[in-house]
């Protein structure tokens, strides 16, 4: 568990984060939503320790925060901007060597296979890849050193459906073992395995709720998208179709169950 308490962050006289207190469990998938410029990325950078808050503190009640941060992977919005190696293999191996990962060759091949990439890609320059391929390679270069926390900032942007689904499957497979923080405007890919949703708007934490208790109307009103199932459920309700309101239909499976009842 990592706790951010009374965090403020100012940049160029703008209050980007305003007295925000929020915690991130080490076994949950935590979705951060909010309109553009709300401060989601800034908050994630404070969590990772890439920037210092103007006020407030980041700590872990169960250990040294620096140790948590060392094993915290951060997939940036444009991770490809950070590439520096001549080949994809070297790019992925760099992080692995830094974390003294054993049996690098086998692990790199496993990860490439796991992410659905053609092994030939290992010999390519990372700079020659398409936008989506670059994103996946950047993700592989984090996964190789088995992070205990993972921050994914708009991970689906630029990916086609095949890669989006693959990436979502990989993140889902980490659920329970890795603390995952996802910042995304696209919710359909992840909503089925998210444990907690927090809404950030205007630099403030509006709410942080377990998935079953999320105020979807609040998220919509803040200017964000909501899952397709919630949108569909709202339409059905408006058209007089009644279903069990105790079931929160944030996935299509849940919506169908609610309709069956």
């Amino acid at each position: 568990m990592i706790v951010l308490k009374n965090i403020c962050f100012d940049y160029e006289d703008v209050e980007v984060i305003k007295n925000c207190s929020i915690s991130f469990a080490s076994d949950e998938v935590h979705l951060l939503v909010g309109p553009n410029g709300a401060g989601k990325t800034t908050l994630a950078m404070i969590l990772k320790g890439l920037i210092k808050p103007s006020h407030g503190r980041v700590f872990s009640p169960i250990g040294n925060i620096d140790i948590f941060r060392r094993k915290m992977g951060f997939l940036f919005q444009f991770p490809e901007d950070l590439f520096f190696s001549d080949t994809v293999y070297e790019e992925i191996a760099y992080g692995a060597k830094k974390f003294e990962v054993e049996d690098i060759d086998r692990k790199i091949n496993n990860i490439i296979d796991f992410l659905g990439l053609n092994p030939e890609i290992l010999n390519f320059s990372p700079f020659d890849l398409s936008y989506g391929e670059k994103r996946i390679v950047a993700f592989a270069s984090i996964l190789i050193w088995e992070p205990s926390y993972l921050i994914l900032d708009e991970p689906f942007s630029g990916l086609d459906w095949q890669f989006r689904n693959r990436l979502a499957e990989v993140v889902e497979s980490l659920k329970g073992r890795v603390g995952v923080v996802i910042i995304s405007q696209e919710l359909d890919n992840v909503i089925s395995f998210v444990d907690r949703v927090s809404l950030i708007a205007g630099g403030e934490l509006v709410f942080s709720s377990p998935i079953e208790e999320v105020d979807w109307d609040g998220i919509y009103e803040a200017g964000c998208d909501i899952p397709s199932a919630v949108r569909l459920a709202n339409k059905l309700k408006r058209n007089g179709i009644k279903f069990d309101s105790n079931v929160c239909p944030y996935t299509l499976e849940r919506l169908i169950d609610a309709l069956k009842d």
Partner: protein
Amino acid sequence: MIKTYSLTLERDEKIVIQNFDFTWSKGEKIVMVGPTGAGKSTLALGLSGIIPCAPGTIVIDSKDIGDFDLRSLREKIGIVFQDPETQFVTTDVGREIGFGLSNINKERSEIKERIAAVVEDFNLKHILNRDPSSLSAGEKQMVSIASIYAMQPEYLIFDEVTSFLDRKSRERIYKLWEDTVSSILIITQNFREINFGERVILLEDGKINFDARTENLEGSSHFAYDSAFFNLLRKNKDYIPQYDRILELLK
């Protein structure tokens, strides 16, 4: 009209697009989809004259692309990049929007007018004096779209420009696509955006795999999910629509 003749385009000495023949009529709104690595962005860079034809030709309104000077080419065709930061050159949002306009030699008064108009249209007033590099990805995306849109090119390419946008910002861009009289080419991975085109193209491995006017596709609205287009997408596993899952679950 933009026409390509046996166009070949390379990126980093690799052929991405080969013998590509394509016509984009004036005023036409095209949506282009395709898997990652299909060559969509390379084609966009070629059509806008940023990377050279190697070989082949692009003719824009009866004039070879090579015969345009940079200023008149930018007035003719604009591109908004996937990564908005790649096009930023100034230190505040107002200057960023004005930069392209001054490069095409617009009068000072017109530059001011156009900046004011796009700031209003794109809701950028609250960030007008901010350094573009300090903005969030979604805000950067809005500024990059506004900067190109302010130049009012006749042909406008949007290369996955809504991926970082929140719902409200995306709706603003959708309205722009609906209202614009410019010819637009929307490259997207978001299948909801197909509805903004009169024509839909599926690009795969640098080739057009599907090209149809949406009105000719099956279905009562723009086109149905059981059309040849969607079946092709499913076959290639490019698209797993929510619609498919609903049908599957309802069975």
